[in-house]
């Protein structure tokens, strides 16, 4: 059991960036918008967080900058998809391409630099609980924020009036429109919040987790987040479970490599990607066609008030 603690603890930390992105995408998709640009948004967030932290010496400013950048770039996606009715899949891919390229372009000068990021902040009483303590409460503040965020979002979606509207607009935007609410504004808002959270996840990688900048450092985490939304059936709590699962695989991978093994590195590195496919297949088999009962009914479809039937 003792051996597990450092692994579980690492799983939490490693899963946190994915969790932020996944939570963001849950919000976006629940509003009916599919945002496949998470990978690009995470990279832009990672870069912004890193560069602003380097420039100002304040990692919190870096994180804030990342969120702003994420919101701004996802606003492009919102504009194209919500206002202009563009194909949401392709638009998301464009965001990924753009974000990957821009972060690499701007980040060229920062490769190899390091920053003083955010350190660990153990929680006094809770950190002493056997097993759970060191696993859950011996992390940096952003991990704790993510815990709170998961709980908050669960409550927000189920019990508040805005949560009700959110659930409605992704299922039947016509109903929301006829109630007099502005579907476009809602979708813009949730797309931007989702993008901001994704960027925050990316910034976590560069500002907290590694405290470095490397081109394409997210290594597909943005895509794993998209998969986790499906795997978690659009539920924040299940998404957390999924994120930590992947975090665990990532952490395990590092340990196996460090421990010295005959398994060639590339094959080990494949684990998260293979696992993503396995996990997706598993949930698709389990829910069958009914997976569509979990997905917001209007996901990915543009909404225009029908002029004539």
């Amino acid at each position, binding site marked *: 059991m003792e051996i597990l603690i450092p692994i579980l603890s690492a799983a939490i930390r490693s899963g946190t960036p994915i969790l932020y992105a996944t939570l963001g995408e849950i919000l976006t998709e629940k509003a009916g918008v599919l945002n496949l640009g998470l990978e690009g948004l995470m990279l832009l967030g990672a870069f912004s967080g890193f560069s602003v932290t380097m420039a100002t010496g304040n990692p919190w400013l870096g994180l804030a900058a990342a969120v702003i950048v994420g919101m701004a770039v996802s606003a492009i996606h919102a504009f194209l998809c919500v206002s202009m009715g563009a194909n949401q899949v392709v638009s998301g891919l464009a965001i990924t391409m753009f974000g990957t390229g821009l972060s690499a372009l701007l980040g060229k000068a920062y490769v190899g630099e390091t920053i003083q990021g955010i350190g660990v902040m153990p929680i006094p009483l809770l950190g002493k609980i056997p097993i759970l303590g060191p696993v859950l409460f011996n992390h940096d503040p952003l991990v704790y924020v993510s815990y709170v965020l998961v709980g908050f979002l669960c409550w927000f979606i189920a019990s508040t009036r805005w949560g009700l509207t959110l659930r409605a607009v992704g299922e039947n935007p016509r109903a929301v429109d006829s109630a007099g609410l502005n579907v476009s504004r809602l979708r813009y808002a949730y797309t931007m919040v989702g993008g901001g959270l994704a960027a925050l996840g990316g910034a976590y990688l560069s500002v907290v987790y590694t405290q470095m900048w490397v081109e394409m450092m997210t290594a597909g985490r943005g895509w794993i987040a998209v998969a986790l939304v499906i795997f978690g059936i659009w539920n924040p709590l299940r998404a957390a479970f999924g994120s930590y699962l992947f975090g665990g695989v990532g952490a395990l991978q590092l340990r196996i490599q460090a421990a010295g093994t005959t398994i060639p590195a*590339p094959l080990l590195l494949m684990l998260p990607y293979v696992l993503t496919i396995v996990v997706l297949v598993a949930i698709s088999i389990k829910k069958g066609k009914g997976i569509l009962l979990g997905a917001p009914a209007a996901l990915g479809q543009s909404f225009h008030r029908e002029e004539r039937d």
Partner: protein
Amino acid sequence: MSVPFRVERRLDCPAWLNWAIPVGAVATALLAGAVLLFFLGVSPLAAYTAMFRGALGDAWGLSETIVKAIPLTLAGLAVGLSFTMVVWNIGAEGQIVMGALAAVAVVRYAFVDSLPVMFVLMFLSAALAGGLWAGFAGFLKARWNVNEIITTLMMNYIAILLTEYFIYGPWRDPSSLGFPMTAPFPDAARLPLFGGTRVHVGLVLAILLALLFRVLYRWTRWGFELRVIGNNANAARYAGMDYMKNVLLAMFVSGAVAGIAGMTEVAGLQGRIQPGFSSGYGYTAIIVAWLARLNPLGTILVSFLLGALLVGGDTLQVVMRLPLASVQVLQGLILFCVLGGEFFRNYRIVPIGKGE
């Protein structure tokens, strides 16, 4: 909050728009790119001139553009096929790589000192490898409705890691010293070139396949089925068309063509596989397909354009020391503008005559 115009749905799309929109989109993207370059302290004029000269300014540049256009056309056709059915094959990158790996495997384990034989063997094995790689994702989608965007994407990462495994491991060229790469292809496995350029016979393949695809979409039964399914899956089912079978088939063919692109890259151009082999062709192909509106002949044209962009990017890297990623930014911008431009295909802005 009243605006001086209103948005109206079009009944049909005038033909001139089919040209104006892509051209306008690219122009807008270049403009946006210029702004970006300006903020980076690079003269947009200098950069664009350098790109133009490098790609289209002389015979060598032109030939290099064609060299890049070949895999883009093939992959663009591949991606376009799946998109026609609204199946999102984002895995062209991985399928290209798998095709190349298959070609290397054939050379390594089944070498015959005859170009025609090697060509056929490599062609078939690359098509099979790419086809199976995509077909697997297609099967998952057909059988259990597993999201193909994610599966094909994950398989991209897996394919690239697989390549790394082979390059650094069992297929490493012992004589390559510090640099990991496979052994160079013997002459019998190299595709013939045109004149003194690097343009290889893959060009003929690309053009032939484009023509084939045009016939496919316009005049064959399967092409009709694909288009119907892509347009309205419900109506297709009602018409007795088999969705599952078609998803599988379309993904397989799509992957096969992408695999062929990989084969021509390794057998025609590079002669070996090094890290960074595919360098994003699979993703650029998505832009090609979308910009060409899934039209096979348009794909050739757009591939040439984007090939010029890539060569221009190479020039920028050499001449102005901008990283290759800058081109990716421009590609993203082009796609944004194309997506935005499509709006005008379906709607038009009408000024309001008199207010109320």
